């Protein structure tokens, strides 16, 4: 249990550093900015209490917001993602929550395709919520849509890259 939390804290710091120091400065064509905070929420262990997930998600979003000067946006997004994570895992992760109750979502445990499906849904949802919050209205919706899709694709690629590294690390 403690080990899980230490490992999560490590991942937390790693993702935070990556997001804040590198990815926040990436704006491909002025649209796509990778947002990988959702990855941390998505890989929270299934047996973790729901309220704990919410607090982790909120904490990560809050610190990201502090660095990116977007107060409330990422914290609201990641809290929502943490709230939805169990259902997403059930619906897209292809697991049976009745039997497997100690699953840590990963390619290794879910299989490549279900994990990609799961990650894609999560990332898309995160980017949609985040950009809608950022624009706070449906003004110039086309631009927002391009933002969402571009960021989703970019985020998903980075998340899958990190996940493949982590799966290899976990195997070893």
């Amino acid at each position, binding site marked *: 249990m403690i080990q899980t939390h230490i490992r999560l804290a490590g991942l937390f710091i790693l993702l935070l550093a990556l997001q804040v120091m590198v990815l926040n400065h990436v704006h491909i064509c002025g649209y796509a900015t990778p947002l990988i905070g959702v990855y941390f929420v998505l890989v929270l262990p299934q047996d973790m*209490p*729901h*309220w704990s*997930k*919410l*607090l982790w998600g*909120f904490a990560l*979003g809050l610190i990201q*917001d502090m660095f990116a000067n*977007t*107060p*409330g*946006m990422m*914290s*609201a997004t990641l*809290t*929502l993602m943490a*709230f939805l994570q169990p259902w997403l895992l059930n619906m897209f992760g292809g697991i049976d929550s009745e039997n497997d109750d100690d699953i840590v979502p990963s390619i290794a445990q879910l299989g490549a395709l279900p994990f990609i499906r799961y990650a894609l849904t999560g990332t898309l949802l995160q980017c949609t919520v985040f950009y809608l*919050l950022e624009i*706070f*209205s449906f003004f110039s919706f086309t631009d927002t849509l391009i933002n969402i899709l571009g960021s989703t694709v970019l985020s998903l690629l980075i998340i899958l890259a990190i996940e493949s590294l982590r799966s290899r690390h976990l195997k070893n």
Partner: protein
Amino acid sequence: MAALIEFIKRYNYWFIFILLEVASFVMLVRFNSYHGSLWFTQTNSAVAKINKVYTDLEAYIHLDEVNRKLTLQNSMLQLQVNQLREQLKDATHQPSINDRHILDTLSGYRMISARVVSASLLKQTNYIVIDKGAAEGVKEEMGVVGGGGVVGIVQSVNKHHSLVLPIINRNSRISCRIRRTGYYGSLTWEGGSPYYANLVGVPQYAKVKRGDAIETSGYSTMFPPGLFVGKVRDIKDAPDGLSKQLIVNLGTNFGNLRDVTIFENKHKQEIQQLFEEADSTAANQGL
């Protein structure tokens, strides 16, 4: 109670979720100027819409009261308009040359303006009632003048009204003169048309022609000298053969007489006193 605690235990993450989301939104609105302004204007316009509906409803409910007030105000304004219209008429009235001439000779006299309350003009003994009386300073034997010329003399007075003996009364007798040549006569009236009066006692040798102006002589203390009375229309010989009788077209139209001025001679007392002294001297000498 136990069920409630169980419910809270089971769904605690819902409360935490809502709490965290609310906190996020508060931050979002509070610390982002763009989101803050957008939130502010949106909620403001929503609140304004609700307030407007409420105000409209309230206004509709109070229409009855408003209508009553408006009716009252409307009638008050109508009264005011009437009054102001009257005042405007008075204020913008252009004085004619006659009026100006009259006004020039008014020093030494105090004037009280009054309004005709009732008048007759087809009887032999016509009278006019005006709406000023002793309370306003009107006394007996004061001269009354209208816009067109001399009207008559105050005969009796009560508190707020006075009876005027007009020129067109058989008992009226006013000292007048011909403006151009200065010959005197007495203005009398013998019934008939209210537009004409007679100037009797004018000497045979007096030079008169039609159209000459007749004015007050100033010999009585009632009128200042030079008040317009009328114009000579016709010249006849008097029945006694010693004087002329002039038919005077009166300047005052008694048919539509409305506003009049009452003259008070400030020196009436002194003049009266001189007369009395003269009388007493004569009496003494006679003795």
